[in-house]
């Protein structure tokens, strides 16, 4: 059936590949950023990496297709065993479209645009603005959440779906942000279990997502 009907889209170089989306193809705009990939990381072919600064993806982290990593405001660092979901954006511009540069820390080293600790999950469509933004170990950034420029989110926090963290805010460890900005402390004490579950999930994802780090190097 499909072979009989002439496709309006000219078939790409790989014959099997066929676009189903009517959206224009996402193009690699701007310069290709320098990257430092761990040999064990999984980065999908259609992930988007842009910007002039270095993008670091550490051991066993998974970058989903169409995830965006923008280093326009500085270095983007993804820790170990992180998961960055589809359409999530690390190093995004703020709502006014500005890419903030992180202020240097006490020793004068640059904070980079975004730093994810280990075991961080950035869920679908979440935006982590650039500008020295730090997300601590084991934190989950929920679907559609926006983390403002320069915010420092502590370890093992949960930002539930569609929540916002203001620019420059410091969130203590184990904070849960829920229900339009209410906050509480997670006292379950299951952070280690969560990390284990993350490792298991990454095991599955690595088999599901074809990795193509060579494309970005």
């Amino acid at each position: 059936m499909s072979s009989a009907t002439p496709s309006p889209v000219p078939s790409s170089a790989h014959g099997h590949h066929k676009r189903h989306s009517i959206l224009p193809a996402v193009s690699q705009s701007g310069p290709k950023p320098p990257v430092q990939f761990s040999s064990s990381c999984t980065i999908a072919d259609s992930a988007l990496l842009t910007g002039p600064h270095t993008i670091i993806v550490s051991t066993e982290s998974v970058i989903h297709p169409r995830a965006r990593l923008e280093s326009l405001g500085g270095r983007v660092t993804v820790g170990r065993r992180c998961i960055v979901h589809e359409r999530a954006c690390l190093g995004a511009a703020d709502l006014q479209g500005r890419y903030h540069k992180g202020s240097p820390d006490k020793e004068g080293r640059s904070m980079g645009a975004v730093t994810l600790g280990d075991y961080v999950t950035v869920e679908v469509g979440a935006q982590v603005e650039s500008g020295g933004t730090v997300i601590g170990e084991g934190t989950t950034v929920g679907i559609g959440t926006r983390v403002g420029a320069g915010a420092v989110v502590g370890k093992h926090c949960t930002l539930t779906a569609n929540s916002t963290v203001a620019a420059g805010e410091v969130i203590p460890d184990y904070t849960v942000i829920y229900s339009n900005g209410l906050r509480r402390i997670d006292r379950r004490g299951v952070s280690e279990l969560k990390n284990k579950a993350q490792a298991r999930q990454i095991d599955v994802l690595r088999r599901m997502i074809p990795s193509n780090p060579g494309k970005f190097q």
Partner: protein
Amino acid sequence: MFGNNRLPAFHPGLTQSRIRDTTTGSGLWFPGLRSPPLPSESDPANDQLPLPITPEDLYDTPMAPFNPYTYIRCPCSELNPYTKRTPDVTAQGLSRAAQDDDDHTFDPRAARSNYSLYPLEYLSFCEDCHQIRCPRCVAEEIVCYYCPNCLFEVPSSNIRSEGSRCTRSCFQCPICIGPLAVNHVETPPDPNQLLSPDHASSSHSGSYVLSCSYCNWSSTEIGIKFDKPNSIHMQLAKLRNGGETRLTAKERKERRKEQASQGGGGGSSTGQGEEDLDTLLDMETQFANLKSFYQNQLSDANGTGKVGGDPSAALGNLGFDAPASLSRIMSLYTGSSSLHDKKSKSRPGTMREALAPSEGLQLASLDESSAITALQDFESTTGLDAYSSTASTTQLQSQAPYLGASPLHGLTRFTSSLRPIPYLLRTKRSKRCPQCRHIISKPESKVTTTRFRIRLIAGNYIPTITIKQLIIPGLTPPPMPNLPPDTIEPLKPAQFVLTFKNPIFESVRVTLATPATTPGRFPAKVTILCPQFEIDSNTDVWEEALKDNNATSSSSQAQNLSSSTGPEGSGPGGRKRAGTLRPGTAGGASLAGEELGPEVGKVWERGRNWTSIVIEVIPASLVQTAKRDGRGPIKEDEDVLEIPMFVRIEWEAEAPEDEIMPGLSSTKGGNKDGGKEKRELAYWCVLGLGRVARTL
């Protein structure tokens, strides 16, 4: 804030602008959520002052988009509930009653109207009374009780014994009302527990917890773990916060005996001994102690009164509800109130009050320093606002009553002591007509099906009315610049198209009436251009299409083809403009007819089962009227142009066999063709056309 807030509060969820969106943009309710104090716009003191109004300060708040609406008044508000009505009330009788009311037209802004106006979707229709019925006047009966979480039906006998909450394992999060899941916990990972010295003892105390996947609350926060993953409700009922088991009635009795034997020997009248008065009792224990104390007192009083004592007054097994103790209490009270009475059986002064916790005395703990330090500690340890550690009113209200732990004074104030909420059961209900007792709506009794066995909704019987502003490019003057969108200009005629859609299979005659000016503070002039018209029957779509095709097929096929390209193509089931229907106009003239705009006495457009007419309004100037009448500024939603309209519909229906009686032939005019019966229905409705601009 901006919605037109009219409907009574029990509407479960309303359409569009009706809902007053208070705090959250998402419209969700969370018990933890606190609303910021609303600005006191409608402060009554403020309303009294005739403030000078300038157009500039009227647009400081953004306006929600306005959707035109139609609300129908249920006839139940016309009836005096105290006069008993005979069951043979017919539609005619009711409409006559409505017309008697005509001398004072229906005012949609009157305070009482709030409770009688409903969108069509909320109304039912009684087929036997031929009348509209609203949620307020129908009688409801519970079909079944069920848990909204596990969808198990609960027999009503269980409701009586176990209360109105799910007794399986269905719980809501006390923090965010999300559903809780039972999770297995592996023992080692809690570092806090490892540090605590009683780790060895806590390891055997269960390994299942309730946890919320949204806000990450877990029952470990109140120190509760479960041994089994099922029948959590029973396990939870036995556990207090912190994990201790609740005392059973037997244990409590034994404990009391122990105390009595320890403090025994001393005079029982001063039983407190060395007991600590600050001992906290849970509610159950306190009640049991008080009960036994007073029973003791009563039996003592009676025992000394009657020499030898009553052998039946053995203490524990006599409840307050037992007839013997009741009669004793009664005799006690009557005896003491009439001291001069014949027998001095009861002596005042023999009763004393409880003096110790073992007798049920609980001192009110007025020392709140512990609560204050807890607040301060929370702020210093977590870095969060201390306010967020206190339970909100809604959180406290949604707590199920638990007698096991909370002391009577100083009920829990912190979120850290809230217990999981067992799901409240829900009901499926059937509805009955209040007059003829016929069932109007009856859901399927099985919980998992959403079907209805009987459901007579008004939308299947009375025409729907939709409203659209009429803008003809050539004729309608262009709106004022910088006017907010979708607003009506004051003091200028605005035209609206009302489309009546007929749901029934008979053609319907509609008669409309409105007051010449709308009642209320800002009267608008109203003219219905075509107050009498017909709507064709709601026939089968295909039947209509085929009929239309046959009639026009041979003669005007070519014309059909050409006209179907235009927007006003009179194809199958298409629409016909009034201008084109006039006799004598043909071809090119119809185009000119369209540009003429609405005409008095003519239907605007017409289709298969719908007819639209035009209504013209000239709203008053809000600002000028408000300045002149000195009744203060324009209140919320007073700028909405609402028009009361009386609708009378007549149609001929198949007369039911059993109702054809020889004596009633006069009511059935055209009775020749197979028992047709004339029916009519009349009701008031309100058209919300739009917001009047606050200019001029």
